[in-house]
């Protein structure tokens, strides 16, 4: 794996939900949610990469509340996760979506003894504890995603097509919400908490725009916005973990744009390296110049945006020769659209990408780039 080879893990179902285990600092773990309309067929796979041996260990849990569209592990507790799911009721021939908070019985994946091993080899999906299910206000509402508040354990945000709401986990009640303005009623597609500004801002993608709302006020007017961030639909966004005014967006125009939202007319960085819609973008938590994107051209790209992450003040000269902007590496092991790509929460150099056909590819930043960044 260190020599640029990736480790591949295959699932039987279609997948479009992936999350690193945020609460875990040591083990490289990813959680995958499957997407199948067959009743009781959905699972959550916990995949752990054993760093020393390069071996892959997995555990499978049943997810009977429906197919998983979105999955986030809790940043507060490694064993807790939240899924955005959809289920079909043949009786009413209707689909219902919801957000469920679940708890894994154990975070351990690597078998400790033979008994453990045989249990895993039996491939029996284990049960998770369902802590809470939140339903949309209107049953027909299409949910896009649900995100944990970065620090406040009792708060989550739910992005529906027509409403963005902050919910209290205990009561399930909506604390604040925002709806699309204007006559066009452009639908929301995605959203993220702003890790800066006291974690009280939630940015949602609405068609081609980025709208950021202040969660302390019940105003539907965004505190800031980046209008027409993409020429086509915007699909995903991520905030720079270190620079409080920078965020990256991707969309159907195959572009990766980085914005300074204080002056959001033109992107400060833009690349069009994918050959189809880009579905996901993630900043590396430790090295903000590394960005991971996944696209329906069946590729994950590792891109450097060093030029916009340079400190001019102190050691500008020293860092000027680190990385050149552009694609560092293209990961072509996928054969279907890559809808998810995530950095590991434990190791800054490991990441996973997941394609629709159920293939998880674990890769590592090539060593020479790593040294360039570190040295």
């Amino acid at each position, binding site marked *: 794996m260190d020599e640029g080879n990736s480790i591949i893990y*295959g699932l039987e179902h*279609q997948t479009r939900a992936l999350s690193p285990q945020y609460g875990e600092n040591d083990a490289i773990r990813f959680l995958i949610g499957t997407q199948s*309309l067959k009743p009781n067929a959905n699972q959550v796979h916990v995949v752990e990469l054993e760093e020393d041996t390069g071996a892959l260990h997995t555990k499978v849990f049943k997810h009977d509340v429906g197919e998983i569209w979105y999955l986030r592990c809790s940043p507060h507790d490694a064993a807790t996760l939240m899924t955005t799911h*959809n289920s*079909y009721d*043949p009786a009413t*021939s*209707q*689909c219902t979506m919801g957000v469920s908070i679940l708890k894994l019985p154990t975070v351990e994946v690597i078998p400790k003894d033979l008994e453990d091993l045989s249990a895993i080899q039996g491939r029996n999906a284990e049960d998770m504890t369902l802590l809470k299910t939140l339903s949309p206000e209107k049953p027909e509402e299409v949910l896009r995603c649900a995100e944990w508040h970065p620090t406040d354990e009792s708060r989550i945000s739910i992005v529906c097509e027509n409403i963005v709401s902050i919910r209290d986990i205990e009561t399930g009640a909506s604390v604040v919400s925002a709806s699309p303005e204007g006559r066009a009623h452009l639908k929301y597609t995605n959203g993220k908490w702003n890790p800066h500004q006291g974690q009280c801002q939630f940015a949602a993608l609405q068609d081609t725009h980025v709208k950021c709302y202040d969660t302390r006020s019940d105003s539907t007017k965004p505190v800031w916005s980046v209008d027409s961030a993409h*020429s*086509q639909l915007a699909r995903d966004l991520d905030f720079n973990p270190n620079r409080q005014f920078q965020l990256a967006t991707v969309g159907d125009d*195959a572009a990766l744009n980085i914005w300074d939202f204080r002056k959001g007319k033109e992107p400060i960085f833009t690349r*069009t390296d*994918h*050959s*189809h*819609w880009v579905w996901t973008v993630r900043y590396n938590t430790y090295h903000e110049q590394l960005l991971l994107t996944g696209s*329906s*051209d*069946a590729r994950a790209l590792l891109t450097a945006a060093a030029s916009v992450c340079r400190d001019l003040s102190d050691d500008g000269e020293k860092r000027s020769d680190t990385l050149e902007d552009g694609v560092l590496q293209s990961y*072509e092991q996928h*054969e*279907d*659209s890559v809808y998810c790509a995530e950095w590991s929460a434990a190791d800054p150099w490991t990441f996973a990408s997941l394609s*629709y*056909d159920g*293939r998880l590819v674990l890769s590592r930043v090539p060593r020479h780039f790593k040294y360039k960044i570190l040295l």
Partner: protein
Amino acid sequence: MRSDFQIMQEEMNKLSENMGKITRFSAEISESLKESGTNVSRLCSTRQLLDKLQFLFLLPTQLSNAIKDGRYTDAVRDYARAQRVLQRYGNQPSFQSIQTECEEIISDLKKTLRDRLFSSVTTASELAESVGLLQQLQESDSSLEEMFLTCAESRLEQHLQTLTSLIDKCDILEWVEKCNSMLLNDLGIIVSCYHEMFANQNNELPEFAESIMSQLFHLFESVLKTPDNVGTEIYIRGLDKFFRKLQAMTDIISSESMSNRSVEIVVQCIFHKALIQSKSVQLQFKENLTRIRQSLASKGTESIDLKEILNSLQVYLIEKVQASLLDLMAFLQNSLSFGLKSWCAKTVSDACWKIISETMINLSELVKKLVGPQTSNNIPFELLLILAKLCLEMQDSGVTTLHSHLLKLLDESAPGFKADNKDTNEIMVHLATAAQAALDTEVVYIGQTAAQMLRVSVLARDWLRAPEPRGPRAVCRRVVETLTSADAAAAQLFPSGVKQSSDSSRRTLWPRIPSSFSPISRIFSERIEVFSPAGADRAALSTGALKVALKALVECVRLRTFGRHGLQQLQVDVHFLQQRLSCIGNDERLLNALLEDALASAQLRCVDPQLMEPSKLKEGVTFDRVLYSIQNSESDNNTRPRSYCWIVRIHNIVQDFNNNCATKFHHNDAINNKLWVQEMNKLDTDSPVLYYKEQKARSDKLDADDLVVHFAH
């Protein structure tokens, strides 16, 4: 003999005696005449003296007369003659009065001359004369030179001002004539006079002349720039006059920098003219383009001959450039003072090349700007095609045509001149990238238009509770229309490439069964690059748009949940798209792969994944009268390999038939088909034909008008 000698001796003695006598007499005579000779000479000298005295006495009157008549030169000459005498004998009382009188007159004269120097009405020659006279009157040189220079300068400044005010009032020819007659003439006189008078002190062209000249050049430059409407002919004549005069001036002034400047100004003129020409070409081209754009935007539904528009645009551009080149050739006329110079030929050749390259680069920039991210939405795609083709044509032949045309023109106008080879690489790269950008934009534009239709229609529909399909949705027809009209437009301009494969053509799409919807099957199919550079031929363009549209369909289908009827509706849609789109593009495998993907994705996203019976598809695709029921009978036939039903309209079968079999059996299509089937049936078990129904033949399941040929795969 002796006596003879004696006689001779005596004779000689007598002769010498006589000679002595003659000498004596002549001396006596001259002695007597000497006195009267002296008298005569004294008389003469007295006469001369008297003449001189008379001249002196008359001098004051003559001087004042001469001055009164304005014959300053005579006066000064007379005074100079008398001056020496007057100086010597000035102390004698009789001359003293004359001298004072003369001096008074002369100082008056000096004053007049000086006044004349500073007066504005005096001409330059008068000025020179005055200074010359003053010099003869022994004014000190340094003060005189200073005076002369200030006067000359002020005079020339005045001329410059007049000329400046004239810039807007008259054309270049008039201005140059005025300039030549006023400023340059005076300058010539002043400079030559200056050299004559102060030659021993300073051989350089005085500084002020330099500054005047540079001001003049500046003026001339602004003259060149102001009246843009002046025709080339008059412009060149003006320039010619100016240049001639300057050349003449260089003989007088003999300044290196000035002759350089005059060459420079001609070079500048040529480039200026070239700039104007290339600007006007660009402007007119832009106008032309706007006109075409409007006509394309307002065309409605009727088709437009794009080839004709392209041709007119291309011919127009080439002709405009050629006309500009010809226009510049006027600088090389033999009659012009600079026309035959080799530097001029080189400049003209450079300027012409500049026109060509600038026009081409402007064209590319214009195209690139048009297809840029901001403006691409409202440009008719036909225009993109035309511009792309125009760039390609220019790259292919246009630039070379223009270059050879230029060489021809140069050869005619400057026969001896050898033009150096121009580097066309940069232009070619510009044109190629512009063409590529236009093509890419066109493909994405068409693809996105269709993709947008599909996306909206897929996302807006409730697939879960969809009613049973009755036919392809209207959006499919619109998508087909969009793609085929773009294909038709591309066909007008871009040659058709070779159709890649038709082995799998027009088979019924059947989604890969879920087990085969796995990485394994995809390993063998090529990765599909959706937004990839578009090739410059019709099929590649259409395939490009097709990819963008259908990949969007796949992705959107995956975001929805389908009921049984929803899935079947999509099946009908996909079937319809396959039928209608298989004729465009060059890669049917790709089309089928994408459509299969869409159908397979829908099947995965279906809560009750039951595909429609193939026989029922015909009800969905009524206008095609598809006949599928045959497939049912086929399933009994276990000896046959898995087969595909070929759904064909009558004209299609002929086409396929001709593809598969080079010979033609009968001119009548129907009989032809029958013959071919019979031929095939001779092959017995190897025959690809499973079932054949002739037109008009009766069958309980089939309509009489239908013709079905069923092949084994």
